[in-house]
């Protein structure tokens, strides 16, 4: 109850401050919109279905791109974790590549794939692949060795060993990396979408700028934050809670 009250007071104050600043008209309304202006923009955007379309297109892309990253990243991470040569050579490269913002791949992606969806997917994959790979590598190393031994002992080997033992055993150790990978994928996607006529949320955002409509810009920003937050809160928090329950990692509540 108290928590809800604090929550309410904080956001009420934030909105109050925003309304006050907008009401003072220090800046013209098209540069500093009011909260209800943003609300109207959101309503209009959903009413003419343009936001629905943008969200669908963006979600589709991020799911494909992130999916590719997860599959590739798990294979790569597992390889790096279980092969000394790969670890010594590629391990360092992977870490250093992480300092590269994924949008730096955009020029290359344009030349390789052309100005189309594949270029965007490439940037999304490059944005999230590294976190998934490093998370998988780390998870594989942190995972108690005894699970692998027990699995082999009970007759699992090759793919069966990976699928039924190594993967589930390392999940608690890689879930935070998967979450980080998701955040990177989402950010990379929006960035890439802003750079060309892509139909996604990123383009809708840029359209607001082109039309000098700051209400629309902020409305899309709110959408991007909301989607990122929802996926994090529903998918990943749910996964973490599920794993904690299964493994009995929860401290007494």
């Amino acid at each position: 109850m108290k928590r809800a009250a604090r929550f309410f007071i904080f956001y009420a104050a934030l909105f109050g401050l925003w309304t006050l600043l907008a009401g003072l008209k220090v800046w013209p309304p098209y540069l500093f919109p009011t909260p209800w202006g943003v609300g109207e923009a959101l309503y209009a955007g959903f009413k003419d279905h343009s936001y629905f379309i943008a969200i669908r297109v963006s979600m589709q892309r991020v799911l494909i791109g992130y999916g590719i990253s997860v599959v590739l990243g798990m294979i790569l991470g597992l390889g790096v974790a279980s092969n000394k040569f790969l670890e010594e050579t590629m391990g360092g490269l992977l870490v250093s590549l992480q300092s590269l913002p994924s949008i730096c791949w955009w020029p290359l992606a344009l030349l390789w794939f052309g100005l189309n969806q594949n270029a965007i997917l490439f940037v999304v994959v490059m944005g999230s692949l590294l976190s998934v790979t490093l998370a998988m590598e780390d998870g594989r190393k942190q995972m108690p060795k005894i699970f692998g031994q027990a699995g082999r002992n009970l007759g699992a080997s090759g793919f069966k060993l990976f699928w039924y033992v190594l993967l589930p055993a390392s999940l608690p150790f890689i879930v935070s990396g998967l979450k980080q990978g998701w955040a990177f994928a989402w950010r990379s996607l929006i960035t890439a979408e802003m750079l060309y006529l892509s139909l996604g949320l990123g383009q809708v955002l840029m359209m607001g700028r082109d039309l000098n409509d700051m209400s629309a810009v902020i409305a899309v920003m709110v959408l991007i934050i909301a989607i990122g937050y929802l996926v994090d809160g529903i998918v990943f928090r749910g996964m973490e809670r599920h794993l904690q329950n299964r493994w009995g990692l929860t401290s007494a509540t």
Partner: protein
Amino acid sequence: MSSRAHNVSAQLPIPVDALISPGTDVRESRLGLVSVSSRLRGNCHGVAKVALSEICLSYRAQSGERLLALDHINFEVKTGEFVCVVGPSGCGKSTLLHLIAGLHPQTSGQILVHGKPIQGTGTDRIMIFQEHALFPWLTVGQNVEFGMKMKGIGKPEREEKIHYYLHLVHLAKFKDSYIHQLSGGMRQRVAIARALATEPDVLLMDEPFAALDAQTRDLLHDELERIWSETGRTIIFVTHNVREAVRLGDRVVLLTFRPGRIKSEFPVGLPRPRHLEDPHVARAAREVLDELRDEINRSLEVEYNEGAKPRVEAGLKAGMRA
């Protein structure tokens, strides 16, 4: 049921050396008290179930020198026999089990199971680890099912066996529980059920009860003895606890400390079911411990001098008792 048998034997004025002197089959001379294993022994055809010949294992230490962990280990285990391997911590007894399980290759020598050299892991040899080897992402039932699933056994048969083996370890009610919801003793019973469900020829037990409290361990000893007599499996049981070894084994094999060599073997002819507190068990254990004392002292000395201890067993060696 166990108390009556052991009370009878406790009253018998039999000298200790008669009970454990090598080669004497005490069971036959004991007022008709025949141990469970002798019935199973009758079935064996003279072929050793597990035979280790000239097993050596060496590894490169961090300093770069080659260290010998196991030195020419030779021993045989008969079908249906319960053999305990005892030695101070760090003597390589767990490693020996890993070799038999095929989880690790030996440097030289041969391991035969039923006359054939082993090739890697195999579901004819299932290991029960000290702890934490059950899969926490699966339910109790699914854990028991795991080995059968890997073997490709059909669903109806798997269900039937899950039921059977969970009953055997008295955990049928916990089929749908997760591992973290069980106590330490229950977990080891699940591990036993999981191992048995793949119907292995040989059970390899790596200090399975070392992390349990004394009462739970006593109960599990009784239960293991019962399960062993009901299923007729061959068991190789590794422990640092001499009394446990004497309480459970048909035979106790002593390993030396660094490198691991076989120091001696003690046939244990005490009637079953046995009990840990049985004075005969205690006396037999003392005999074994006397033989082992030098090795324990040597291992403690090395550990104190080295300061840091590479193994987790450090805390357990204090519990080494007769």
